[in-house]
């Protein structure tokens, strides 16, 4: 009795959870499928029409007499309908009657059947990656073809920004975390408390003055500038995370190394770094994805220099200026998701750990 009740309970749980998961997946699925559909198809029918579904399709045509009065009842195949009904389509014997040409008084008998809109293409991706081609007419009449910057340039830019913007803070923070954990120096306590206090500082607070400095130094829109910005904004968290790990390492490790006459630098790079690989991977992945997905920092420190623009900016631009070019938007968004999704599915263990430790990031 109890067992049966449990079993039924489990069924309900599975069902409810299944529905929730389905709801969670559907938006992404829609984007994914749409990104492979031709531009015209996306605007004409919903992406779910790719799957087999029941739909009325055009069948034979009935010619009514030309004198039929549209205001009165209209007789088709022995039954009478109103003009409105025929406009919207009316069901009869499992078929649908609908005006084909109201003025010529022809009615179409539509039959219900399974249908798919199976046209899938990778043209959207080609378009988005390489950029649109523009034909320009020069003053002398000759034509030149110019290519707009595509997403592939932005992809490389994002990677160029994200890799150092991950390695630099992780390295700097590890050095600092090592010193905070195992070296004694004046101001150590105060400095570390400040770093903890900065964990949740909204970075908006820093943007305006930093931008002023950057403009003065010519760092605006340069790789170095954006690396440093991401490094500084990520540092409190990465330092905190690495401190938690490095300070938990056993003392004996260091002692034996010291007896062998190793310096702190050697201990750090030969012993601590290799030992911290799991922690480095977790927080590194977190920082990498943070930079990869970032929009605000790039928006402010890169501005509108097309040669350094990152993907999130490109996509936000597309969404703003070409809100109806769904074939471009969907494929562009999906390209930008490739890296995070790959990391998520391949390195899930590290990713979750980094995220749980890194959840307090400002």
């Amino acid at each position: 009795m109890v067992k049966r009740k449990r079993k039924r309970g489990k069924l309900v749980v599975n069902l409810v959870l299944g529905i929730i998961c389905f709801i969670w997946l559907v938006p992404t699925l829609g984007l994914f499928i749409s990104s492979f559909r031709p531009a015209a198809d996306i605007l004409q029918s919903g992406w779910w029409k790719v799957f087999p579904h029941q739909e009325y399709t055009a069948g034979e045509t009935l010619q009514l007499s030309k004198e039929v009065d549209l205001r009165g009842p209209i007789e088709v195949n022995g039954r009478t309908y109103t003009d409105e009904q025929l406009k919207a389509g009316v069901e009869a014997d499992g078929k649908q009657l609908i005006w084909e040409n109201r003025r010529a008084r022809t009615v179409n008998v539509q039959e219900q059947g399974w249908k798919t809109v199976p046209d899938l293409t990778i043209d959207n991706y080609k378009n988005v990656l390489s950029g649109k081609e523009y034909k320009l007419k020069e003053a002398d009449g000759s034509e030149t073809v110019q290519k707009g910057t595509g997403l592939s340039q932005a992809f490389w830019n994002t990677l160029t920004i994200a890799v150092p913007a991950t390695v630099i803070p992780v390295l700097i923070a590890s050095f600092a975390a090592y010193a905070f954990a195992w070296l004694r120096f004046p101001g150590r306590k105060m400095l570390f408390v400040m770093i903890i206090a900065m964990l949740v500082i909204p970075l908006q607070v820093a943007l305006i003055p930093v931008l002023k400095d950057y403009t003065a130094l010519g760092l605006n829109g340069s790789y170095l500038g954006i690396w440093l910005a991401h490094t500084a904004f990520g540092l409190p968290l990465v330092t905190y995370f690495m401190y938690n790990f490095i300070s938990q390492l056993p003392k004996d490790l260091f002692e034996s190394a010291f007896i062998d006459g190793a310096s702190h630098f050697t201990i750090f790079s030969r012993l601590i770094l290799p030992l911290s690989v799991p922690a480095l991977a977790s927080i590194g992945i977190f920082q990498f994805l943070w930079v990869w997905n970032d929009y605000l920092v790039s928006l402010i420190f890169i501005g509108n220099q097309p040669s350094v623009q990152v993907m999130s900016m490109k996509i936000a631009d597309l969404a703003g200026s070409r809100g109806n070019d769904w074939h471009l938007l969907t494929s562009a968004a999906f390209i930008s998701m490739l890296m995070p999704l790959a990391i998520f599915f391949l390195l899930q263990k590290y990713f979750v750990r980094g995220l749980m430790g890194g959840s307090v990031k400002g």
Partner: protein
Amino acid sequence: METQLKRSPGTGDPQTRQRISAGAVLLSLLVLLGNIAVNGAIFVFFRDSTLNPLITAVLAVLWGVLGIYLIYYTLNWAAERYPERLRRRILPFIFVGPAVLLLGWLLVLPALRTLYLSFFNASSEKFVGLANYAAIFSDRLMGTALRNNLLWVFVGTLACVALGLLIAILADRSSFEKLAKSIIFMPMAISFVAAGVIWKFVYYYQPGTEQIGLLNAIVTAFGGEPQAWTSMLQPWNNFFLILILIWMQTGFAMVIFSAAIKGVPEDILEAARVDGAGEIKTFFRIMIPYISTTILTVTTTIIVFTLKIFDVVMVMTGGQYDTEVVATQFYRQFFMYRNFGYGSTLAIVLLIAVTPVILINLRQFRKQGGF
């Protein structure tokens, strides 16, 4: 440890390094200047380079990654020229130096300067006292931004925490826990911009009977009227934007709750069941109190995150149709209206809003016996 370190013998012969030699000082100065000069030169090279972008990218990555290591390496090398005792004093500052300098330059000082700017007018020339703060709380646009932010924080956080808890418990009892958790968690990995596009497509509205946006298609299938969800339905459009946050952040809450739930001892739960407590009663009387600290942590984390929400609103509506929040208003004031006073004040308002969390963090850290 401390004493151990102090007694540990240094490398090399201590006799030759008892004194600070002028050579060592000169050498370390040279190393410092050399680092600045070399990296500066490389920076200028990249700024003016007309190389193929791909080559630039590869070189830049190499520079960024190797450069930072070389800075530490050379500085450490210079420090090793000094006698043992002095070196031990210098070394920690080489280790924490770059971090402290960067944080000071790009986070601490700017925060203070922003605070300073918030007392000045739009062009930062005239001191206006607290006028900007007064204006923010009386201006209609700002009022909307503040109201919306509160809406985001309350509705968003509550929904994320409640849903996260629910899903964590369901997943715990289901037969496909791992898969379900992966699915719910996945949106955490993607950017808010991409999520914005995904949901823009779900909410898409076009006049006529054929709707390609999922939500409108569902509404019309049930005989309803299609709506422009994110623009026309004020103030309800905010909820449709908040839904995106819920979709993304619930996974985070769920993963952490899931770990916490597994930590509740089975025998306590069993004892409650034997005493005749139903599932719901055990949940509220035992489960919830047991994981209350986790709930608090998750809640504050999501609140901090939600306070600064920017990307979603920017991509979905650009702050139009009364969906403005503080962070977008900050961006608008600063970059479009060039009103540095308002911009700074808004940033400070955000800072004030998170100070309780900073204090909680510090207390937590002290409790853990951090130092």
